[in-house]
């Protein structure tokens, strides 16, 4: 894997931005400044960034209720996102989407989605467009372990395999669907096995390790671009925070969570790996940390100062002219 220093710093910046974004949101909700249902991505950064670092604006991704990370990884403007969560007119969706529907098609980000599993056929359709228009674009879908129990998962992967579409289906197996441990509701050990029902290729990555995700996703993306069909890529990961902001986390073993957070933090793993390889200096990373902090402070200040949407906008954008 040949990642340039620039690429590494970029990846780190995105991962750090995601982490800081989510930590800020938690604070903001607890301070009563943000409303709505917020599902935070902290802990899973290596997945979004490991995959999206290899995509261009014309490649499409779809996401889930837990969508901030995918947006940031795909290059959606952080200030626009923050303004969106504050429900401002300057938000990336004009304040109409909010956390669960945050999107920016200009960056190829076809939306978070409040319906578990619903992004999967959207991706399949984007891949169909790529194939029929012969663009060599790929479409990548992020979804959770829980979503693999939805009929839409089954129907979409089957179709994509039949049509050999340029799609990558990335399941973020974080061990829980809401409060229910994955093993209560998914009777196979590796979700990647489900690809066999569709004669689809599959792979399993360590979702806490940017480099492992990068490599395996890269192979899947390249196969897709070459017209060799879709892949189901399972990334084993963990969410560091609750299912939603406000989740008391009473249902999961504290030691289990501690262990992941202390020993398997994707940012720490990244930092250790690049340090060991001597690819970047620690000071570079600390500089990024500082820049990210400043960016978020600005984003929040600007969002708070931004205008609220005009009430007339309620009836705008329902239909295209």
């Amino acid at each position: 894997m040949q990642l340039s220093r620039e690429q590494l710093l970029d990846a780190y910046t995105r991962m750090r931005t995601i982490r800081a974004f989510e930590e800020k949101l938690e604070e903001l909700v607890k301070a009563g400044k943000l409303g709505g249902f917020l599902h935070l991505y902290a802990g899973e950064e290596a997945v979004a960034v490991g995959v999206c670092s290899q995509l261009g604006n014309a490649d499409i991704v779809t996401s889930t209720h837990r969508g901030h990370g995918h947006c940031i990884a795909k290059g959606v403007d952080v200030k626009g996102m923050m303004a969106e969560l504050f429900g401002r007119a300057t938000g990336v969706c004009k304040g109409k989407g909010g956390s669960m529907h945050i999107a920016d098609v200009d960056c190829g980000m076809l939306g978070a989605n409040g319906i578990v599993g619903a992004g999967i056929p959207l991706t399949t359709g984007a891949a169909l467009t790529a194939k029929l228009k012969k663009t060599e674009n790929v479409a990548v879908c992020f979804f959770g372990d829980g979503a693999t129990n939805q009929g839409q998962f089954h129907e979409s992967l089957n179709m994509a395999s039949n049509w050999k579409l340029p799609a990558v289906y990335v399941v973020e197996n974080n061990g829980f669907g809401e409060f229910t441990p994955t093993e209560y509701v998914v009777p196979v050990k590796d979700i990647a096995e489900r690809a066999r029902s569709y004669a689809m290729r599959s792979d399993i990555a360590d979702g806490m390790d940017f480099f492992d995700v990068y490599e395996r996703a890269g192979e899947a993306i390249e196969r897709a671009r070459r017209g060799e069909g879709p892949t189901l890529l399972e990334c084993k990961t963990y969410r560091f925070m609750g299912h939603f902001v406000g989740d008391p986390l009473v249902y999961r073993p504290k030691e289990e969570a501690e262990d992941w957070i202390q020993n398997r933090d994707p940012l720490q793993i990244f930092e250790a790996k690049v340090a060991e390889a001597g690819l970047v200096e620690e000071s570079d990373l600390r500089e990024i940390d500082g820049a990210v902090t400043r960016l978020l402070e600005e984003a929040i200040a600007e969002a708070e100062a931004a205008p609220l949407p005009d009430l007339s906008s309620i009836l705008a954008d329902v239909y295209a002219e």
Partner: protein
Amino acid sequence: MSRKLSTGRAINEALRIAMETDPDVILLGEDVVGGGTLEGDDLEEMGGVVGTTKGLVKQFGRDRVLDTPISEMGLLGTAVGAAATGLRPVAELMFMDFLGVSLDPLLNQAAKLRYMFGGKVRIPLTVRTLCGAGMQAAAQHSQSLYWITAGIPGLKTVIPSNPADAKGLLLAAIRDDNPVVFCEPKLVLNQVGEVPEGDYEVPIGVANLAREGGDVSLVGFGGTVPIALRAADLLAAEGIQADVLDLRSLAPLDEEAILTTLEKTGSLVVVDESTPRCGIASDVAALCVDRGFDFLNTPVRRVTAPHAPVPFSAVLEKAYLPSAERVAATVRELG
């Protein structure tokens, strides 16, 4: 120039024209190709379960006419994703009853993505679907569920009552940048009528005064337009002259056209082959008692199917559906 075609053939012609004039138009659905055409054999494709898409794969190839697995949710969701990214898909939901297994891509995706994304996406999707009773297909293949799609903000829903409208409405639907549900009522499918040649559109949202009367207004759409027209004949024989308004578009609703005929006649009966609750008939009646209140001389009556599933037995199905006699009797009772 025009010639006589069935509604099914008129739809086929519209699809062909749409595909010829825009390379982004594709068809997908279950058996829209319909098997056949394996290499090196003389098999024939079926072109859909009632033959509506017959011949299109020969002209446009399997890249633009796609047979899907029996996966309605997946295929509609795929069509939404394709529409959001540059294609202009025409998806077939074989029977409208199958909304049961495919509502989400319409309800929560196609209808809402543009709004949720602050206007940044267009979903130029058409969903063609057979609806209605009249073929003894019983409870799960005979429903008129257009009230569900018409009720969802972000979708449009149209329904033709004759072959010429079918062609023009379908062309308009495909070229609309919004998701449009195009209903194909079984009562209309095999009806034959004059259909203009060439490329034309019937605008969405515009009702058609199918008959001018002036004494009473009959409002119908799809399969109930022929019923209302027959009722108008029955009434004319008794000296009652009826306006017959064909809605053509269920969402958006042409409110002005409804109010115009009501203002003229003061008396309105709406005929809908769907069930009575939460439907188009109630919307029309509610419009009359809201914006049309000052025009009303009589109650507004709804002639609909009963609040029951569609029964199988031919005698029951016939009694279940609105009839010209029931419509005429309803008008007579209004006095």
